[in-house]
């Protein structure tokens, strides 16, 4: 598996860069969870808005907090939120999608209408409502974004489920006396894995972006914990005086997104049998 991946990376610089960036983001997120140069939430009245220096590699923010430390701990938060959201939304969406495709009929129609209704909701509004109910914070963001993303997953998985359903190994399973639920779990779901994984990676990207956007609108994770979008939003007032405040989180978001997008492309190629021989 890894060797095949390496093959893809060797032939495509994009895949290589993507894998590298994703690795970087994850390493940073892991580091950020147990080590930061300073306490990311400790306020210092004497060092407000200090420019980058040896002591503070990325400078300090308006409360004198070390930007690098905040960036690192925010990475943990962002990656965790996006990752968990992607996993939850994909898992639930995949199951519903496969089930609607497989069972069909009224169940399918009703679920579809329901999912469509959710899709018609702007996802930010959905997020806003959940956050208004639960208060902002990691969990609210995860719940809100998961709900918002489930319908898209359902759609994608349903489409591939529908074509799978027509394939004869599903009939073969019935002939062997398997129950419909067993067939769903054992034959349909695993076969939607490729689109699910690809979708999962893009969901990770979307969630990262949406979490940043939410934080940007002041609805993200609970302060004083940092998040990239929140850091970016807070930096707006100091744009001209302390540009480093905006540059660091902005770059962090863009780099992660770039990484996840490139990685997703590579993954798509990796999972696409047609591309294997190219």
């Amino acid at each position: 598996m890894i060797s095949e991946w390496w093959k893809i990376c060797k032939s495509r610089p994009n895949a290589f860069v993507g894998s590298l960036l994703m690795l970087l983001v994850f390493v940073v997120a892991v580091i950020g969870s147990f080590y930061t140069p300073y306490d990311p939430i400790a306020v210092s009245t004497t060092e407000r808005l200090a420019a980058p220096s040896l002591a503070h590699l990325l400078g300090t923010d308006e409360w004198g907090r070390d930007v690098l430390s905040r960036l690192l701990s925010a990475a943990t938060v962002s990656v965790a939120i996006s990752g968990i959201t992607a996993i939850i939304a994909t898992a639930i969406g995949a199951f519903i999608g496969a089930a609607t495709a497989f069972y069909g009929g009224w169940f399918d129609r009703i679920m579809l209408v329901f999912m469509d209704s959710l899709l018609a909701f702007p996802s930010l509004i959905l997020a806003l409502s959940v956050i208004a109910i639960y208060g902002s914070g990691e969990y609210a963001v995860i719940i809100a974004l998961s709900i918002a993303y489930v319908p898209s997953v359902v759609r994608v998985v349903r489409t591939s489920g529908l074509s799978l359903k027509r394939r004869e190994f599903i009939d073969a399973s019935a002939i062997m006396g398997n129950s419909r639920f067993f067939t769903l779990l054992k034959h349909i779901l695993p076969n939607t894995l490729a689109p699910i994984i690809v979708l999962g990676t893009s969901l990770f990207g979307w969630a990262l972006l949406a979490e940043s956007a939410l934080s940007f609108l002041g609805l993200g994770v609970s302060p004083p914990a940092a998040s990239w979008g929140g850091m970016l939003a807070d930096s707006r007032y100091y744009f001209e005086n302390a540009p480093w405040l905006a540059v660091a989180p902005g770059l962090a978001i863009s780099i992660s997104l770039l990484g996840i997008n490139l990685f997703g492309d590579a993954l798509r190629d990796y999972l696409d049998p047609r591309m294997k021989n190219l």
Partner: protein
Amino acid sequence: MSIAKYLLIRVLLASMTLFISLAIIFFLIRLIPGDPAQIMLGNIDDPVALERMRAALALDQPVIMQFLNWLHRLVQGDLGVSITQDRSVLSIIIPSFGVTASLVIPAVIIAALIAIPAGSVAAWKQNTKIDVIVMTAATIALSIPSFWLGLLFLLFFGLKLEFLPVVGYVSMFDNFWEGVTYLIMPVSALALTEAGVIVRLMRSSTIDVLRLEYITHAYAKGLTNWTVRTRHALPNAIAPTWTMIGLILGALLGGAVVTETVFTLPGLGRLLVESIFARDYPVIQGCMLIVTLSYVCVNVIVDTTYLLLSPGASYD
């Protein structure tokens, strides 16, 4: 299935979608803690005034009654009156929707006009320098959050170069050219990110099509590259992109909140967000009506044109 029956079913399902969305939002916003009357009073603590205000806003009725009343008036074309602003919901929503539409529609059109040719060319020149350049640009465009891009635009074009206005908004219907100058930045910021998505989709669907046998067959007829790519590959490759464009448009018409926030456009997205903050129930409901309606309409239109465009697709 006949087109009439197909449309009938689509419209039926669409109205169900609409109804469910509206019901969800109606009860959801009332589930959210916060009381429009108290918000208006702010930190003034006056229980009597609060009760009076609640009664005036009919908030003291059971929720289900409020819902039925609202539906009843809705079928008569009455969306109610805003709680926070002293006027009918319709007169608030329509201009906001106009702003969002004049932001989103040009942005999506521009994005499509850039992205479809770019994606096609990248696919034609697969694995060449051109492809790498186009795809890198698209991926980068996709990876820059639109609010960040918006801020950079504001700073650079608005503040440093000073050739575009940064403040406020003039409707294109009031003063066309001035209106356009206010839209240039937000439209380009939005178009750029969306273009990234469309380029990638267009490229991959074009590549898929180019692999097909009938393309080889077209070459075997002696057609030029150009003819094969435009006349044979393009119509087939554009179908999924077309659906995607519809989805993007439908979603954005529901308000490009972030872009509207960054560029301070009084669009539907902002209106919706602010109404939620203010718990202005009638406006929220009205906005959601428009949002869902435009989403559903765009989708029905896209799906139907898709069917008309691609003969042989099935209708179920």
